[in-house]
């Protein structure tokens, strides 16, 4: 590389970066307001957040075709990042409809919630749009640190603190591993840019392998892939339920985004190793997640394990390092973010009824006392199970298709076993809600906003399943684009 190239000054193209900037500014506004006014009105904070996020969302949607790189290639805006960011922001806005009532009920109204949410959203958005290891590392920290605090937000609750502490320790380990991996990759290729690193051809590839392994292990801990999943059920169970919903949707998209950027760049010569490594992890993940979820008595924990299992299905798609696999995976990730979030949000609403403990018995005959909630929850569960015509079915079919494409029959057959096990717990819940007579009467009254958002999400589960082209027409070119890199 010539000296001239190195010192070339690039004017940052801020237009590419506007959505993130808006979210970041929203975060700082909330931060300053929280410091200045000791007792910040929560309605005001929510309004500011929603206005900020909506502006970012509108900018994104109206400039959906925005493409380019800035900050010397640190930051990339392509259809992949735009697509993921649209989902992230949308889900965050929906989440804000649920938080206030829940926190009021749990007596954990804190102003830091809003700016932490904004910062983690900012981090997630950056994670979705970078190839640079350093930036990925920084964004990972931004998301994780916010998540640790958000998990511990229920200050009076022991499980909340326990979960946060576990998350902090293992999450810190993950980030250390990821940064270690980044260093190895830098040694290998002399660059932090993943595209450069993975296309670099040195005779000795040991540093590449070491680096990739460490880097992906770090991300695997964050995602909750099985041998590294131990923090996840505790953190998910301990966190305030809307936060759990947030971590399982936006957090999942964010942590998967770098993996999906790496996947198309894996060289042909590595494919067999990649398939074996990722495929094995995937199989262990979904089998473990499903079978352990099967014996849970606590529904929130059950859904946490189901979230692990779904990471496994997504990884199964990732293991097929081909374009069809990436399409399936992106679709799956987006679909899961909706249905996983909906599942937790239903719990968040139900928890507001008196002595509700998320136990299986609490769901007996829910249909009679809370017809609306029961139907919404049933749609979410059937979608998680993969019953057509919900989107959960479609994405599983696509993953099967990519497995067939890669001739990975063994993963396919094992996945059938995994899904078979999952039938047990999803269906049990539906059965308890609709077919049993319970003495308990849930008294949660969802507000109008909550009802509207839940209906919207449930409807989108059905619509995306029945009319797949709505999302597919964006996903397909995105995947092709990532493979051309």
């Amino acid at each position: 590389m010539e000296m001239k190239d190195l010192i070339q000054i690039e004017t940052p193209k801020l237009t590419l970066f506007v959505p993130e900037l808006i979210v970041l500014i929203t975060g700082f506004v909330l931060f300053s307001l929280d410091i200045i006014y000791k007792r910040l009105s929560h309605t005001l904070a929510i309004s500011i957040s929603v206005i900020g996020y909506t502006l970012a969302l509108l900018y994104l949607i109206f400039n959906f075709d925005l493409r380019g790189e800035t900050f010397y290639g640190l930051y990339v805006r392509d259809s992949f990042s735009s697509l993921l960011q649209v989902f992230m922001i949308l889900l965050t806005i929906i989440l804000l409809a649920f938080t206030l009532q829940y926190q009021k009920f749990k007596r954990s109204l804190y102003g830091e919630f809003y700016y932490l949410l904004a910062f983690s959203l900012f981090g997630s958005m950056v994670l979705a749009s970078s190839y640079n290891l350093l930036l990925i590392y920084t964004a990972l920290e931004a998301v994780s640190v916010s998540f640790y605090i958000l998990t511990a937000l229920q200050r009076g609750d022991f499980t909340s603190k326990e979960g946060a502490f576990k998350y902090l320790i293992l999450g810190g380990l993950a980030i250390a591993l990821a940064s270690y991996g980044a260093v190895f990759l830098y040694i290998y290729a002399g660059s932090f840019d993943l595209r450069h690193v993975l296309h670099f051809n040195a005779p000795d590839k040991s540093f590449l392998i070491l680096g990739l392994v460490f880097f992906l292990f770090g991300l695997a801990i964050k995602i909750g892939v099985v041998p590294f999943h131990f923090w996840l059920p505790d953190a998910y169970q301990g966190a305030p339920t809307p936060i759990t919903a947030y971590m399982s949707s936006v957090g999942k998209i964010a942590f998967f985004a770098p993996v999906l950027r790496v996947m198309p760049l894996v060289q042909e010569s590595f494919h067999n190793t990649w398939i074996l490594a990722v495929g094995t992890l995937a199989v262990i993940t979904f089998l473990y997640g499903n079978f352990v979820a099967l014996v849970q008595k606590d529904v929130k924990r059950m859904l946490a394990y189901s979230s692990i299992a779904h990471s496994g299905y997504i990884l199964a798609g990732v293991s097929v390092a081909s374009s069809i696999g990436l399409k399936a995976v992106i679709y799956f990730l987006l679909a899961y973010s909706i249905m996983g979030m909906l599942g937790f949000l239903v719990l968040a609403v139900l928890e507001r009824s008196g002595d509700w403990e998320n136990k299986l018995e609490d769901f007996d005959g829910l249909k009679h006392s809370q017809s609306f909630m029961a139907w919404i929850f049933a749609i979410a569960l059937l979608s998680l199970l993969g019953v057509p015509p919900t989107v959960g079915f479609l994405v599983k079919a696509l993953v099967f298709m990519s497995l067939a494409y890669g001739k990975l029959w063994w993963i396919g057959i094992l996945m059938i076993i995994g899904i078979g096990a999952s039938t047990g717990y999803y269906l049990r819940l539906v059965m308890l809600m609709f077919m049993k007579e319970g003495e308990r009467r849930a008294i949660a009254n969802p507000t109008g906003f909550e009802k509207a958002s839940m209906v919207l999400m449930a409807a989108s589960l059905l619509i995306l399943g029945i009319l797949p082209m709505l999302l597919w027409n964006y996903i397909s070119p995105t995947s092709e684009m990532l493979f051309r890199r």
Partner: protein
Amino acid sequence: MELVPAVFPFIPLSIVLPLLGIVLIVFLEEKFAKWIALVFSGTVLVLSLVSLFYFDFSQAQKVQFYQSVTLIKELNLSLSFGVDGLSYLMYILTTLVSFVAICWSIKDRQINHRLKEYYAWFLLSESAVVGVFTSWDMLVFYVFYELTLVPMFFVIGIWGYKLRLYSAYKFFVYIFVSSLFLLLGIVSVAVEHYRQFGKFSFSYFDLLQNQYSLAFGLFLFLLFFIAFAVKTPIVPFHTWLPDAHGEAPTAGSVVLAAILLKMGTYALLRFNIGLFPKVAVFLMPILVLWGIATTIFASWFTISQSNVKRFVAYSSISHMGFVVTGMFLLNKEGLRASIMEMFAHGLTSASLFMMAGFIYNRLHSFNMQALRGSIRFMPMFAILTAITGFSSMGLPGGSSFWGKFLTIMGAREYTLQLALLVLAGAFFSVLYVLYLLKTLYLDVKEESMLVHFTDVRGFKLVAFLLVVVPMLMVGLLPFLFFSFFDTHIDLLLATISKSLEGGLWK
């Protein structure tokens, strides 16, 4: 296969109208629910009967009323509906039986709570089953195939008898898990099309062109077969059926036995034989013997039942054994027998389940002992039961006669011994029907148990007649029904012999 475009959207309307009915049921008061359901399913029945005038029977092997909308171009995923002779017969059976089930439910005393849901589920199942029999896109077929599970799961679980939760759960898990193999099979076939022709496709017509090596074909065949063998069911996989059929409310059992089982056999014929003719030929001896074994074992199981609903449920399995046997004989008589038996069993099993439900409403028991002699004082019911029983038995003139007779004929084309084996199956299936009839007609009840029952009338009579009259038609005017599917069979046999050019092992 050739396609004939639709002059009028019969099929999409048959799928959409019940859904429209559901919307009305949800938003109107509960007291209207049953009438809305009746009107909408009745309309669909009329629609399907009117479509008879537009169906070209001389070209029944072609897919008629064909309509298609592309969903994802890249994957060739489309909503494409249409009927050839085989699916047309099943389509008419579906609309008929769905109407009968709803007609029956109106005066069923079991159904006294959560009426809105009840009728909504039945309309959904009608819509889904019509979708199963008429879609030509494999993934869409699968969607409908799985969708039929949901309504039946709720119907069994909410309005069923004592063991309803267990049965509903078992039913769903068995079918759902086995169908996942089908899903893997379907996407594999679509991917195989990509390997051979350079584009993905879920369209049945495209997938017919795929060529498979025997080993890979066998693997795919098995993926499909697991799902349909559980659905049909074939004997070691049948354990969900007596529970589900035995615990479901009457109308639920009617729909389950009369049309949901046909999905399994229909799909075996359409996909397992249609897509993998070579493998079907390869596996023919095993599958034929398996079918015969199913018949014989299921007949034995049937005789040993003391619960009349489980009795009828097991008898369904034995009939399905005939369907499978006939189908995998892979000759003209066998295939005719198989399709004829599918239709005939749809009618007789519906009638038998209604009979069991009818007696339960009067006796509050399914016990065979309590049933003894209960046919007295109900002349109309006695006549209907007798016709149903003899039809199910396979008496000449009864509807199942053609299924059994032609299966034996088909088996005779191979060897006499095979024909005798089939005959043995037929013998045992006669035995249990006779046993049932004996219990109902000839055994005498103790004096104290003699109650004056009211005879069948009103909506229930209509429901009975709607299946008994076609039953007689099948028995006495079989050529009407042969004209539906004979050309289809010829086409299928031609495909099979064409696929064998160059030998089985190629």
